């Protein structure tokens, strides 16, 4: 089976690298981009299985990008990955499948990706 592709949208380079490495170590193909425009450009030509989305991005914010992701690929699973839990108060954040507050390591991110992909597989295989 082909590796699941994860797009990581994260402006902090160190964090982006860390998340991509951890996801790769868990057996995924991880692609990192640093802002919303790069992400949109990538998604307009490539397919991925999950998007990991930071919200505080330079320029176009993650919350602005989120509905664009759904316009390009309706139903594509998105994990919001932010340091600020208060973004939950913005109803548009509910468009994401998972809202994850960042932890010091990437452990909970890898778990969330796994869970989400498992859920997708279950939905796909249910009659």
């Amino acid at each position, binding site marked *: 089976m082909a590796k699941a592709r994860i797009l990581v949208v994260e402006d902090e380079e160190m964090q982006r690298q860390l998340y991509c490495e951890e996801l790769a170590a868990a057996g995924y193909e991880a692609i990192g981009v640093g802002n919303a425009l790069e992400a949109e450009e990538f998604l307009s030509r490539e397919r991925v299985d999950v998007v990991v989305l930071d919200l505080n991005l330079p320029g176009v914010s993650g919350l602005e990008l989120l*509905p664009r992701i759904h*316009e390009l690929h*309706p139903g594509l699973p998105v994990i919001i990955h932010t340091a600020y839990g208060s973004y939950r108060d913005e*109803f*548009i954040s*509910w468009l994401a499948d998972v809202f994850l507050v960042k932890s010091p390591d990437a452990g909970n991110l890898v778990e969330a990706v796994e869970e989400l992909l498992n859920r997708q597989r279950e939905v796909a295989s249910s009659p």
Partner: protein
Amino acid sequence: MSRLSPMERTLAMVLAGGLGERLYPLTKVKAKPAVSFGAIYRIIDFTLSNCLHSGIRRLFVLTQHKSLPLDRHLRLGWSNLFRAELGEFLESVPPQQRLVREWYRGTADAVFQNIDLLSHERPQFVLILSGDHVYRMDYRAMLDFHLTKGAEVTIACTTVPRSQASRFGVMEVDRNDRLIGFEEKPSNPKPLPDDPDHSLISMGIYLFNTETLVRAVIKDAKRRDSSHDFGKDVLPDLVRNKARLFAFNIRRELPPLFHYWQDIGTLDSYYQAHMELLRPDPPLPLHHDEWTIRTYLPPLPPAVLQGRVQIRHSLLAPGCLVEEGAIVENSVLGYGVQVGAGATVTGCVLLPRVRIGARAKLLRTIVDEEVTIPEGETIGFDLAMERRRFVVSEGGVVVVPTGVAFQPSSVS
């Protein structure tokens, strides 16, 4: 716990963005909620008056096509009734295309596309209303019912004979008023549990807990196969997922003043609703002190009847001028209408500022705003001929549209 009353924690979203195609040509230059109704009102005045009487002080009117006349009416007649200092507002919101770079794809999409308004206002309840219904309703009673039932969604509904129910969203309820089925325009409508001859139909008025609404429209927005409509998609999905939806039957829960409800969907229903206003005991009494319908009218002089005129069973708005020898029967004359000397107007709905030339004869005709009918013109007697120049409804009512030019040769 908030110390605000439940009504103060309620926000209304009035959907006013439809094309109004079935009411064409009255919707040629304006959205349906801005179409004139009952001589001095605009259709949206009924819904907004209900909000005012019910104590709803936060309203968004979601507009879209041909919104300028509607915006103007809201600005002149309504926005100034709400005090920003008290957190009150009535705002007209055209599509922002922040989330989706498209027009509204359905009623649920209109709410989804404006979800940031709800994030900002954070109401506990959201009342979804339509800007093109004519009715009186006390939304406070609906909210009380919603709280008593512990509902997530309450749908206002009324009963119609089963034979007429196929045009509507038909609801199936248990004996506790909880929805167990919802079908949009079914061919075989389900009857009421205790009345096999009637069905319960949705009025398209929904009271949601905000969280339920947000989750539902987001879920719907993600579906490719959805038409993004509350009646067709969102409510059936909520019923399937065992959400707590309840039916608020206006005929049982409210006094008779509130039993009239008309979705002004077609030219014939528009015409019929006007003819009903002329009955000695109209089902929608406009003269009622308790629940007045507000509107905006420009400054107008009193109506004038010059010399000997005959007027029977008709409504005359301020600013009307009926000249010597004219006959007006079973008709509604909007504000500023002039009927020339010797003209005959029978079974007509003349919208504001229409001028009927001397000796013209009109039968069962709707004349749109500001149209001038030439002297001696005849309209509504030969429907085959009228179909060649005007829209004629299924029920045989002629509609003379705004901007029409009369051929000199058609003057007899």
